[in-house]
């Protein structure tokens, strides 16, 4: 990316840092902020959807009290089952829908976009890639058209050689080489993996600081999933983009993400570095999740006898939302919402079992407890 493009990048509040740094990805100099600096922060994020119906006061508690930070050059995985609210979080962060509570901070300043211009500025810095590359690309437009549009919107009116150069660079960045082979193709002429790469290139055209990846590999063929994950990993390392990786596959979170956050029924139940969360899960739900994933090396330790399913979010269970399925649940779990408690260095779990209350539940091995 040329330096002229970054000067045009709308960036009124923070003139010096990350967008300029992202424009020179391969040569980070002294003025660039270090990896790990907080880029986007969510505080007490909440989304309640109103239910349809005359006089209906019921709401769906899709996301409740979620806090996290996305850091420069780091990948945060958000793991949960369908309906746990993880895609809602992505849409809230992309400001595709308004929040009903909580705050969103971009570099420490309120990021809520009021009006179209502010929204444009915001999406220039926070981009999203969607699950379905078959649905997210316009079938009647060529790759060239889609990328050109994105470049024009976010970087101004490039023309001629400059535009061509930017297009080729984008395609090469997502490893669609040689670019000439792909640039005039329609989406139907590309495979699923190639389409997802085009979608990623389109997001990169804005030179974003944050990439929200909502299940980017779940619709792809198994043999090419790793290629996309490795590409995102490469973007993280070279462009220092902060990535939110949303997935239901906890094994891929371990492979790809620095930190992992586990969500259940609209709340975060556990967070920590990916290796610890997957190897030594603390919250009973995370334990169940890890033990339920197929693992041919360890057929004996699979959780058997798990029952029940995620609760209704219209009337979520009181207290810990996992309590109806939890073999350890006590009266405390049924009445009071557990806060995120520290369970090790940089790790938190929302389970009363880790508190110092006298009436706390006694935890043991989930596999044995269920059997």
């Amino acid at each position, binding site marked *: 990316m040329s330096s002229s493009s970054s000067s045009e990048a709308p960036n009124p509040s923070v003139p010096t840092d990350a967008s300029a740094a992202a424009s020179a990805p391969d040569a980070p100099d002294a003025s660039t902020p270090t990896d790990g600096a907080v880029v986007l922060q969510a505080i007490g994020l909440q989304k309640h959807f109103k239910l349809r119906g005359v006089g209906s006061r019921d709401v769906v508690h899709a996301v409740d009290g979620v806090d996290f930070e996305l850091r420069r050059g780091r990948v945060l995985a958000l793991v949960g*089952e369908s309906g746990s609210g993880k895609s809602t979080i992505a849409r809230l962060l992309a400001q595709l829908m308004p929040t009903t509570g909580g705050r969103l901070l971009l570099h420490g300043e309120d990021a809520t976009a009021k009006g179209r211009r502010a929204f444009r500025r915001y999406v220039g810095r926070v981009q999203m890639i969607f699950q379905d590359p078959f649905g997210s690309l316009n079938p009647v437009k060529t790759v060239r058209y889609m990328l050109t549009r994105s470049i024009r919107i976010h970087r101004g009116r490039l023309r001629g050689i400059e535009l061509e150069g930017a297009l080729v660079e984008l395609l090469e960045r997502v490893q669609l080489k040689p670019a000439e082979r792909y640039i005039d193709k329609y989406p139907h002429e590309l495979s699923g993996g190639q389409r997802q790469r085009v979608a990623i290139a389109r997001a990169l055209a804005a030179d974003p600081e944050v990439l929200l990846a909502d299940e980017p590999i779940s619709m792809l063929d198994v043999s090419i999933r790793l290629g996309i994950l490795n590409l995102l990993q490469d973007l993280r390392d070279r462009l220092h983009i902060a990535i939110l990786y949303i997935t239901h596959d906890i094994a891929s979170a371990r492979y*790809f993400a620095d930190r992992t956050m586990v969500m259940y029924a609209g709340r975060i139940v556990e967070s920590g570095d990916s290796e610890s969360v997957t190897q030594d899960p603390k919250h009973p739900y995370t334990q169940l999740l890890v033990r339920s994933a197929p693992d041919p090396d360890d057929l004996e330790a699979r*959780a*058997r006898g798990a*029952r029940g*399913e995620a609760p209704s979010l219209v009337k979520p269970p009181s207290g810990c939302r996992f309590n109806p399925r939890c073999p350890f649940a006590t009266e405390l779990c049924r009445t009071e919402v557990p806060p995120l408690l520290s369970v090790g260095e940089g790790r938190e779990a929302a389970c009363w079992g880790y508190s110092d209350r006298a009436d706390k539940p006694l935890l043991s091995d989930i596999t044995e407890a269920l059997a």
Partner: protein
Amino acid sequence: MTLTDPLDGAGATSLASPGHLQRLTPSADPVLEIRNLSVDYGYDDDPVHVLRQVSLTLGRGEVLGLAGESGCGKSTLAYAATRLLPPPGLITGGEVLFTDRSGVKTDLLRLNETQLRASRWQDMAIVFQGAMNSLNPVYRIGRQIADGIRAHEPKTTQKEALERAAEMLDLVGIAPDRLRSYPHELSGGMRQRVMIAMALALDPQVLIMDEPTTALDVVMQRQIVEQIAELRDRLGFSVIFITHDVSLLIEIADRIAIMYAGEIVEDAAALDVYHRPRHPYSSALLHSFPPLRGPRRELIGIPGSPPDLSKLGGGCPFRDRCEFAFDACSKVNPELVYPNVPGDDPRRSVACLRHDPAAVRAVGEEPLPVPAELSQT
């Protein structure tokens, strides 16, 4: 059939001599034999050959896993074998022999419409990929199950059929009072179980499940898979389990057939596929899943993408993505043979020229040895 199979009465299958494998009867007691099944898509002069001469045998009481990427023909195989293939799919050859409990063989591809209607569901039932959405939204689930029972057994009264339906729901772990529920009142996992209950209502001998757990969460997936395994042990039906999730298959299947570009490339016991893959594609597929445990390592997946079936020439369809390809691979399409590794299970087979020196010599090339990655013991 594997040795762990509880229903394998004639478990001691005689060991065939190494070399080209007699693939017609790998199981002593087959319930379904698919022989040289070919399917084309398109009626014009240039149809796409989606299945090419696929042969597969399902033993009684066996869980056979069918794995492969989207577009490799695994669903087509299941639909063709049950004659549910929608146009423009066309079965162009082969036979599908079904053996009933008394040992009578029938070719499903030669049944007329009436016989086929009677056979479906009774002999062979399918749980479809979008099973959760295959329930009729405007009927209560009890009625939907009962309707099926009465269609096959007209003498049954509605009351008896509903009682049977309640039993079936109980079998899959749903409270019988749910008979009066509409599909939208059930969660995804419950709807999937209703579909399984429905499929088992007439006590079929073969249950085909096309990606039955793909739309479900891992916890629910595990519950369903456990349930299928338990019901199989109790009722003794055979299962063809189609999925792209090889690690799941290794857990539940006795035997796994791996498909690539409309052909079966490897067919072996589940744990053999996992610990001792013989085909480069099987091996690469197993390394495409990041492991949940063990050391974290850099994974690369499989370079390239699956071939366009309408543009397949001769030669091995996997050669462009294969790290072990050599000159002969572009000349001859390998057939399923016994792997060229001493001591392998004689019932397994693989379609790779590295394992088939005879076919390589036949086209005037020099055979190459089996690489170490494909000959672990």
